[in-house]
């Protein structure tokens, strides 16, 4: 079957969690992987919602509703994602300070979990000081940071700087929409900071032991 993004988007905008969940389950039954569902069903619908907001067709309230439904759906998927025979690898996934867009990073966390990683998700608007504190305690192999707003690129720069000062050896990966139109020089500045465009490239990296 082909994925019907329009019907799915309508369900999100109307807050119809049941319909959205039915569509998702159907696609899942058809054999689409979690990664496919995230990239081909959920992401395009949310991007389209962004266009509707940008052109004044929907309100922030509707945006909130749509993202609340999506987060509920991601939780539904979690049951299929959880792996119990976990590897020793640990990852901490977080958004940059001041960033409220956490759905992309949630997906990133799920891809790690699917691959058997011990995954900690900190989510939206995590203060850098708290993040550093958490990492020191958890000692992950990888720190994954998500950035959506390009206006926050300098914040990310500052953040990586402070993290590097306290934890010089931690491997950092970053991604998110802020890099769709630039920001790559920031990545080149640091050693052992890698940028990923989407879940597919991330997944193949995880499979090949990152």
């Amino acid at each position, binding site marked *: 079957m082909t994925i019907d993004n329009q019907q799915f988007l309508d369900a999100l905008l109307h807050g119809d969690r049941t319909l959205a969940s039915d569509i998702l389950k159907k696609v899942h039954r058809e054999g689409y992987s979690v990664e496919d569902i995230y990239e081909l069903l959920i992401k395009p619908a949310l991007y389209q919602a962004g266009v509707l907001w940008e052109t004044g067709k929907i309100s922030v309230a509707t945006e*909130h509703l749509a993202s609340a439904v999506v*987060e509920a759906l991601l939780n539904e998927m979690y*049951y299929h994602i*959880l792996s*119990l025979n976990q590897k020793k690898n640990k990852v901490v996934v977080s958004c940059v300070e001041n960033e409220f867009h956490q759905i992309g990073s949630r997906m990133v966390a799920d891809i790690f979990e699917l691959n058997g990683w011990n995954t900690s998700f900190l989510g939206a608007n995590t203060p850098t000081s708290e993040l550093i504190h958490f990492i020191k305690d958890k000692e992950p192999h990888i720190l994954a940071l998500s950035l959506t707003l390009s206006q926050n690129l300098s914040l990310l720069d500052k953040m990586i700087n402070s993290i590097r000062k306290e934890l010089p050896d931690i491997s950092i990966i970053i991604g998110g929409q802020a890099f769709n139109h630039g920001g790559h020089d920031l990545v080149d500045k640091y050693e052992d900071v890698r940028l990923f465009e989407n879940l597919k490239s991330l997944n193949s990296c995880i499979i090949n032991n990152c």
Partner: protein
Amino acid sequence: MISGDSSLFLSEWTEEINHSIHNNKSLCIAVFSCNRELLYANAPMHFLLQDAPFDQLLNPSFDQLVSAKSESDEIFEGHITFGTISSLNTSIVAKVFRKNNKILIVGGADMNQLMEQNEQLVLLNREVNDLQRQLIKEKVVLENTLNQLHEVNNKLNEVVATKDKFFSIIAHDLKNPFNTILGLSELLGHSSDSFTSGQIKTYAQNINQGADQAYRLLENLLRWARVQRGLLKPMFTRITVSALVNEVFELLKENAEAKKIDLILDLQFTGFVTTDREMLLTILRNLISNALKFTHTGGKVILTTQKEQDRIVFKVSDTGVGMTREVMDKIFRIDSDVTQKGTAQETGSGLGLILSKEFVQKLGGKITVQSTPDEGTIFRVFLPLPPYIR
């Protein structure tokens, strides 16, 4: 930004303002007469008042507003809640004025409150999400633990059943032949003088039969014990089918003759199999002696060897008493004790069949049974053939 004198700057926009008020979606405005008549309501106020304006004014009520005491025209300022006691309701922040026997309500959403509450709801939603994930995780862990427990429990049950079977065989089946042996040998030892040589011969034969039975049972028991302890691993060698079945027939010929049963060999396949010789020997011996046990004098027991695609089939069929579906379901199970006496009151433990099944599995094969009461039974043992024979 709040600045300037509204009457000064807005008076020249009266028409536009009136038009906007009428079509606005967030400013709610209504005019009532004091004797309960709705004179005007703009679109969002209509939405709040629905078709029953005086019922929908939940707090304060219309009557409270009409009878409110005030020095000035303004009679109320605060939240007005619309709805009924049986619905989810909405509030606006509003002012109410009373003038010329009429009442004016003007209000709208409290933006500050909306934003604050929106933020709080988003945070709350986040917490609920995290909690839900945590619950799902714990559920999966629990499910997994439960499955493991279940598995261990099944294994334990099997171990207990195995142990029970072991003791029951020792207690009954192995003890019985010794009763015969001990009883008869004592009789012979004490008073052999008073017996005829014919009688002595019969007793000696009985003792021999009892010893034979006990020995075979002991052999099965020991083999089975070794299987249980994981000590018995098949040793695959190339063996000639005809030589092996002849050996089994040699062993059981006398049993068949004693019961006057026709023991027939139908060798349709005579090649080689690669298998464990001892195990296959035990399987066939158990199946045939079982068939002899449950077949009446004058009946038939046939062993057929056939090639079927990439497998060899050993078929043991008899014209015996057969069994019901119920019994068939239990004969290979360790936790059931369906033991039945043979047609000549032969005893048995049922261990032979269980052992045969375990051996067949170790040899990578399959065993099936098919039976009709009073007509007979067919056991089939399927074993894989080496590739060059397939």
